[in-house]
């Protein structure tokens, strides 16, 4: 089931800052990571996306060195780090609730790593001041973390690892502790900051919108495996598995029969496939069209409709199953009402995906 697109294989060369090679991790008899492979290029932001319990945090903790995988290798700049103790890895972690030291001031928090490296006080002060500047917190160095807002705390947590110039930045659900209103703006800010500094980052989340905003590429995880690694648009348009299609965005599935490399769609169009026999076909709601009346072969009854801004979401029951359609709102006179017979069509068969049943 694991598919790493061949096109991405070239990134698994020495150019990759971080390479995760066939990593497996078990806790007792439970396998939490199975054969995970992933390469991250210099300056790239990759998101590990999946529901809770899919192993994304475990993978992050393995990269950080808090846990070690039983099998596989984690290479940073080509060097296997599995034997490297946690405090020697060139990896900076931004924790879910930031884990700022409450007994140290903001400046002392940021200077902590430099102090542990035994740097002279004057250099620590200079680098802390620069880091505060980078995250726009100048003037707040003397405060304690409890005196800061959630967003400010997050920036201290980032500055605390940035100041050590790690090769890889790991962010474990950094927006979880923030209220929903702040998140959107903070996501854009954080992405821009990481890009400006040219950092290589791995970002863990269960929130697909966050993943779509933050990432250059998304690795969708399920039950300890990486299902697909691809840029956000590709994940959305060409989900490699039915699971990815279902997890990212909304989707319609129906059963069909593949014969001689083709699948006939309910509206009469057809689609090529490498599968034969019974298959599942997937289309996004915005790739379906809806016409009032009985105009074609794919007819159904309108169950429910609601306006979502300029778009209308329709729920239609058909012989192939219940479908969701997203389409532009029509002039009031030509807008169907609930209970009407409607005709569905696939706008671009190329954007449908065919999966094993």
């Amino acid at each position, binding site marked *: 089931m694991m598919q790493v697109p061949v096109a991405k294989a070239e990134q698994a060369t020495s150019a990759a800052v971080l390479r995760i090679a066939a990593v497996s991790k078990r806790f007792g008899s439970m396998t939490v990571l199975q054969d995970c492979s992933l390469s991250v290029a210099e300056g790239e932001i990759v998101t590990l996306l999946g529901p809770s319990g899919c192993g994304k945090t475990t993978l992050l903790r393995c990269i*950080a060195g808090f846990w070690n995988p039983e099998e596989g290798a984690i290479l940073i700049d080509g060097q296997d780090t599995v034997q490297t103790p946690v*405090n020697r*890895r060139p990896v900076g972690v931004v924790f879910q609730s930031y884990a700022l*030291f*409450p007994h140290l001031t903001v400046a002392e928090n940021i200077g902590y790593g430099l102090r*542990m490296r035994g740097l002279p006080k004057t250099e620590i002060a200079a680098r802390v001041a620069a880091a505060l500047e980078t995250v726009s917190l100048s003037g707040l160095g003397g405060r*304690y973390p409890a005196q800061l807002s959630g967003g400010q705390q997050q920036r201290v947590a980032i500055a*605390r690892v940035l100041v050590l110039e790690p090769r890889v930045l790991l962010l474990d659900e950094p927006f979880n502790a923030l209220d929903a209103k702040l998140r959107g703006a903070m996501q854009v800010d954080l992405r821009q900051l990481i890009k400006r500094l040219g950092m290589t980052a791995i970002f863990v989340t269960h929130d697909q919108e966050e993943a779509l905003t933050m990432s250059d590429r998304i690795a969708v995880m399920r039950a300890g495996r990486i299902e697909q690694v691809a840029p956000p648009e590709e994940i959305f348009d060409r989900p490699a598995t039915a699971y990815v299609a279902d997890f990212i965005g909304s989707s319609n599935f129906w059963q069909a029969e593949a014969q001689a490399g083709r699948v006939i769609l309910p509206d009469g169009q057809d689609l090529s496939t490498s599968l034969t026999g019974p298959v599942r076909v997937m289309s996004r709601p915005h790739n379906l069209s809806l016409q009032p009346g009985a105009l074609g072969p794919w007819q159904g009854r309108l169950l429910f409709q609601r306006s979502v801004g300029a778009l209308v979401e329709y729920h239609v029951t058909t012989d192939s199953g219940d479908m969701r359609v997203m389409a532009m709102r029509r002039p009031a006179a030509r807008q169907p009402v609930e209970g009407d017979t409607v005709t569905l069509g696939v706008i671009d068969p190329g954007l449908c995906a065919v999966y094993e049943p």
Partner: protein
Amino acid sequence: MTASCTRLAARSPTPGLLEAVADKLLSGRGIWPAVPAIIALTVVAVIPFIILLSLGFSQIEMERGTIVSQSFTLDYLINALSDPLYWTTFQRSMTLALTTTVLCLVLGYPVAYLYLIGGRWTRRAILILTIAPLLTSGIVRTYAWLVILGGRGVVNTALMQMGLIDRPLRIVNTHVAVLIGMVQIHLPVMILPLIALMARQDRRLEEASYNLGASRLGTLWHVILPMSAPAIGTGTALVFTLSYTTFVVPQLLGGGNYLNAATMIYEQVVYSLEWSKGSVSALILMASCLVVLTLIAMATSRITRWTKGRDA
């Protein structure tokens, strides 16, 4: 809660007042919820103590069982402060208490650290082993030390069996025996506040510390130790107070000739029936204890000033 208040109020002849008092006691603001405890302590501790203290500062003339005259005097206090016996006794008490406190901290902190890094079963075991001694009274435990450390006790028998010594060591009735007993009796009081704090400790702070390049020792020194300062302060204050004013351990393990502040007061009041002397000694004991507690509180508050700005 409201229902029971209403019911109480309905039965009371002055519903308004009782309800108002109940409301104050339960509202949790100011000192109101502590009022019952304050009243109880005033009756059983503060008033008797004031009466006791007044004995130390009054010159009482008695004739045939009745008081004929009573006047204020500082003679007892001045006599006590100019008596070298008092100074050596209080100094002995202070040294014993400070040594006990330091030893309890030195022995107790590693246990708390083990609790912090331990798994579920380690934590349970530490908790049980810490609390178990508290289930027997201090007197019983002190007698147990007599059995262990005595002339024909476990320690001496074992040492003689191994041929390390020819005749029993004299341990009981020495300073060492008192110190061993004191540390054992008071160790749980040091450990409990420490592990209560460790149980609440956010383990991610340690991970963050390691991730930032700190070693285990560096993390202990720069993160765990400063963050446990409030519990160290509590444990230190408790152990110091208990061991500075202790009576049972020095009395039993010191064999009746180990004089500390509490045993001296006991002798003054029970044997010599000099209540005025005993009263003044008790005052000195309490005052010197408060001085040390204040120093501990000041040091703790200085180290934990980061907790103050929480809501700023």
